[in-house]
C-alpha cells in the first residue's frame, strides 16, 4: 500500500464509539452489506429492520441480513469483530439491522443487539 509519509495517526469516530458497549456482545456498528443481492435489495427501504442470521454451510459460518420471506439482502463481513459477533449469536444473543440507505446494488445498515 503506497503513498507519501503520513502524519501522526488519529482515532476515528467509529473506533471511539466501539468502546462504549456494556459487554462483549453489546455490539453496535454501521456497515455496508457485502455480496448484495439486487433482487432483494431493491425491495427494501430505509427504516426497515432486517434479521441478522448466522448461516452454516459445513464448517463455514457467515452472518447475513434477511428481509423476512424476501430472502437474504447481503452479508455482514470483512470487519474487526466478525468472529465476536458470531460467537455472541452462538451464545444466544440476537441482533437486528436497521436499513439506513439502500439501492439495488448497496445497503447500509446499523446493527445493534435486539432487546430480549
Amino acid at each position, binding site marked *: *500500500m503506497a503513498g507519501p509519509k503520513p502524519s501522526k495517526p488519529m482515532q476515528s469516530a467509529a473506533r471511539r464509539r466501539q468502546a462504549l458497549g456494556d459487554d462483549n456482545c453489546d455490539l453496535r456498528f454501521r456497515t455496508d452489506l457485502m455480496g448484495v443481492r439486487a433482487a432483494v435489495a431493491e425491495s427494501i427501504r430505509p427504516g426497515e429492520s432486517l434479521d441478522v442470521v448466522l448461516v452454516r454451510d459445513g464448517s463455514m459460518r457467515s452472518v447475513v441480513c434477511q428481509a423476512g420471506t424476501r430472502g437474504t439482502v447481503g452479508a455482514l463481513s470483512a470487519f474487526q469483530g466478525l468472529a465476536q459477533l458470531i460467537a455472541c449469536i452462538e451464545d444466544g444473543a440476537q441482533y437486528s439491522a436497521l436499513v439506513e440507505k439502500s439501492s439495488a446494488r448497496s445497503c447500509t445498515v446499523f446493527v445493534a443487539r435486539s432487546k430480549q
Partner: protein
Amino acid sequence: MIIVGGTYLEECDWPEWNRLMGPGLRAALAVSELSKDTELYTYCHANNRADLDLTTSSFGITTTVRSWDDVIRFFYKHPLSSPPQIEPEASQTDSENQPNPEASPWEVTGAVVLAFGMLEIGVKVNAERAIIEWSRYDRRVIRGKINTLALIAAETELPEGFVLDVNDPDAAAELMTAWNAELMLVRRQAGGAVLFFGEERTEVPAHAASEWFKIGAGNVFAAMFAYYWGEQRCSPLQAADLASRSSALYASTRTLPIIHRDLLPPAEVFNPTATCKIFVASPCYSMAQQWLLNEAIASLERLGVEVVSPYDLGLDGVRVESKDIGEVLEGCKAVLVLAEGADVPSVLAVGLAHVRNLPIVVLSEEAKEHRLQLWSGTDCEVARDFASAVYRAMVAGRRNLQK
C-alpha cells in the same frame, strides 16, 4: 488467480467505514464471485485472523496467511484525505524506514498473479501473467520469472519526471523497458486511465460514479483488470475498460464482490481531462467553514479543476481586487455548494448559477428530510458526503463542457 497484498484495518469518518480490508483482501473479495479459485497471500495480526478467515471462507477464497506483530490501521477523515494516516508509525512507507529490510521477499508463483506492495515484506512474483501495482513510494515488489507483465500505477505515484499528458509515451516506455513489461496502465485521479501497449497510447474511459468512495477504488481497478486480462485473456483495452466500470461501481456502492460484466449498470462516460472551472459557494467566516472550503478547493485542484470561491470575493475579510460574483462565475462549468448554502452570498451564487443553467451540486450531510426539502424542485444535485460532492461537481463540470 493469486493475489498477494496486505490486510489492514481501514477507518473513515465521513462516510463511516470501519473495515478489515487493505489492498490484498479487497482485491480478493472483488474477484471472488467471478474467479472461482481465488487465492490470497497476506499478512495479518493474530487478533484479526479469525475475522479474516471467516470473511475469506464465506467468499470461497483460499488463504495463505503470515502473522504480523502490529495491527496496521489506515485512517481517513474523508476518502479524499491525502495521504491517509497510518498506525503504527513504524509502518510508514518511506524507503528508509522499512519494518523488515533484511527479510527475504515472499516468493509467490502461479499462472496469474496480482501483486500489491505490502508494508510488512517484499514480494517476488513468478507467473505466466503478472499484474503489479507499481508505486514510486514502494519498491518492495520484485520481478521474478514472468512471461507477460502488466504494470499499473496511480497518476500520483509515477516515477519522478513521468508526467501524464506531458512526456508520458517516453516515460512509460522507459519504465516498461526497465521492467520488461508488455503494457502499462496509469490510473487518472479523476477516473479512467491511460493504456500504454507497445507503441500505442490509448485513453481508457472514465465512468461516472453516483457517489465517490475512493478508498480502495484503485485496488478494485487492478483486481478486475487482472481478472479480465490475466485470467479471461481479454484485450488490454477491453480489460481496462471493464476495470474502470467496475471501479466506478465499487466507488458508488462500497460493495464487493464485483458482479459479472453483463450485469454492470450503464454508466455515463466523461472526459477526466477536460478544462473545468468550478465555483465553490460556502460561508467562510469561521475556522470550520474555512477548513471545509480549503479541503474542497484542494481536492478539486488535485482533480485538475480550476477553482474560484468566496476568497476571490474577499468574503473572508481579506481585501481583494474589486470583483463581483458575476465576474467570478464567468467561465464556470458548475457550482459546488458547501454548508447547504447557509449564507447570503452562497444563495446569490446559486441563484446566478441557476439563471446561467450551470449544474449545481449541494453537499447536504444532514440526513433529515426537511433539510433536503430545501433543495427540492431546484434541479440541484444533492450529495450526502464531502468526497461525493466534490466528485459529482467535477463530473457535472466536465459533462457540461461536452454539451
